[in-house]
């Protein structure tokens, strides 16, 4: 590179930018492919075929869907609040995409895994993601959308409270918010065993944050049409739709990084590519779990969702936090 006349700083910045673009493209393509993966897997588990006509095993179904959605009329209904109606899908997509900068996908690969506020940035962006649903629902000016948005706001705010508390056990054990430090702290054992309660509650909160089944009350089809994005069409709907899958990939990647050691595995330090393979396998395991939950579980009532969050998960995370703090202090003192 120096032959062209770049200073080392510029070269480093260029390499970092290329890496970031590769990760971004990989993330968006994975999220889009998940639409097909989910439909095929749901078909498999429900004893039917799913989409298998377009391309090999229906693989080109995603391409066909994308072409359709790009060329569809992007209609803004006359009764909506235009500014908020346009901002909402952008917020939905960008918050989840932005949070992926934290994830170390392989040793030395990742946009900002060493960020000192680390996991707090994810919590902040998950909190801002609520605005996508609320603004989308409010600006649509229709009753289904508004009801969906109200439900979603209450659900997401309740579940974010203990989502933050659930990861604090991991932060205490690693002694850092940065995800690269959290991965490094798991060299002698993954955090899923000592932090099992934290893992369970973070998983539940992660499903609620992406409002996937069984926490899909904001868009419960039988009661609310499509919930907050009832009035959306074309690519704006597409952004909500893909943002959900980006959220699934993001939460799965975070679960793998926080509790299953991220890219750690035998030989990963020598061959970074192997580290990426380990990371992908762990992430895909959680993505499968997300889809299996959707295939297997019925949707709870709204009051059951709220009770489950405040009366069960919140106390569990508090007990986990106290126990972890006592354990960490006892080991430091002794």
């Amino acid at each position, binding site marked *: 590179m120096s032959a062209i006349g770049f200073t080392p700083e510029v070269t480093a910045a260029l390499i970092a930018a290329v890496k970031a673009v590769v990760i971004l493209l990989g993330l968006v393509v994975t999220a889009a492919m998940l639409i097909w993966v989910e439909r095929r897997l749901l078909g498999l588990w429900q004893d039917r075929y799913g989409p298998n006509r377009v391309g090999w095993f229906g693989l080109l179904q995603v391409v066909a869907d994308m072409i359709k959605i790009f060329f569809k009329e992007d209609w803004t209904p006359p009764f909506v609040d235009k500014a908020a109606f346009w901002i909402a899908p952008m917020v939905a997509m960008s918050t989840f995409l932005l949070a992926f900068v934290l994830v170390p996908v392989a040793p030395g690969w990742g946009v900002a895994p060493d960020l*000192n*506020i680390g996991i707090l940035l994810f919590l902040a962006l998950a*909190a*801002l993601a*609520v*605005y996508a649903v*609320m603004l989308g*629902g409010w600006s649509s000016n229709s009753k289904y959308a508004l009801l969906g948005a109200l439900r979603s*706001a209450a659900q997401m*705010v309740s579940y974010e409270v203990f989502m933050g508390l659930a990861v604090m056990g991991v932060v205490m054990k690693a002694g850092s918010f940065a995800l690269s430090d959290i991965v490094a702290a798991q060299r002698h054992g993954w955090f899923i065993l000592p932090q099992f309660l934290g893992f369970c509650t973070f998983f539940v909160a992660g499903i609620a944050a992406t409002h996937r089944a069984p926490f899909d009350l904001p868009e419960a089809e039988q009661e609310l049409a499509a919930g907050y994005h009832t009035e959306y069409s074309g690519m704006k709907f597409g952004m909500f739709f893909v943002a959900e899958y980006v959220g699934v990939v993001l939460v799965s990647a975070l679960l793998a990084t926080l509790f299953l050691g991220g890219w750690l595995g035998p030989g990963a330090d020598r061959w970074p590519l192997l580290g990426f393979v380990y990371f992908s396998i762990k992430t895909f395991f959680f993505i499968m779990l997300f889809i299996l939950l959707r295939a297997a579980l019925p949707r709870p009532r709204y009051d059951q969702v709220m009770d489950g969050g405040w009366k069960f998960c919140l106390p569990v995370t508090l007990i986990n936090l106290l126990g972890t703090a006592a354990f960490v202090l006892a080991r430091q003192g002794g």
Partner: protein
Amino acid sequence: MEFAFDLSAAVAVIATLLAISSLDPVHALLYLIVSLLAVAMVFFAIGAPFAGILEVIVYAGAIMVLFVFVVMMLNLGRAAVEQERRWLTPRVWAGPAVLALVLLAELLHVLGRMPAAAGIGEGTIGARAVGAALFGPYLLAVELGSMLLLAALVAAFHLGRNE
């Protein structure tokens, strides 16, 4: 980092002015959220990332969500915008604006006479330093604050109870 500080401070001031003068309540809240995010950016620029991210999580992410939630439930439509337009006449805002301008001039005067402090962006105050300060010299304030919050929680629980 002074450039980042100036830029985000300017965004914060403009967004706050728009939040006050905006006629639509939800648009005003959106400007207020932008203002809070800009203030968080100011914290990042002066080397306090922990304070900055807490500003986003607590103010922009939790408190403002409740504001938007309540405004959504009030079902304010065109009528509210019309009412706001009738209320927001120069006769109403001219007096407070002049008084606030006097205070602003005073503030600028005082700031101009202060000795130049250490440049911004020197040193970072992380979570560890904030925690040590909160549970060291400011322990009493933290405990009093937590008692106040507990009282509010008990009161909210009492009001929300089904009899």
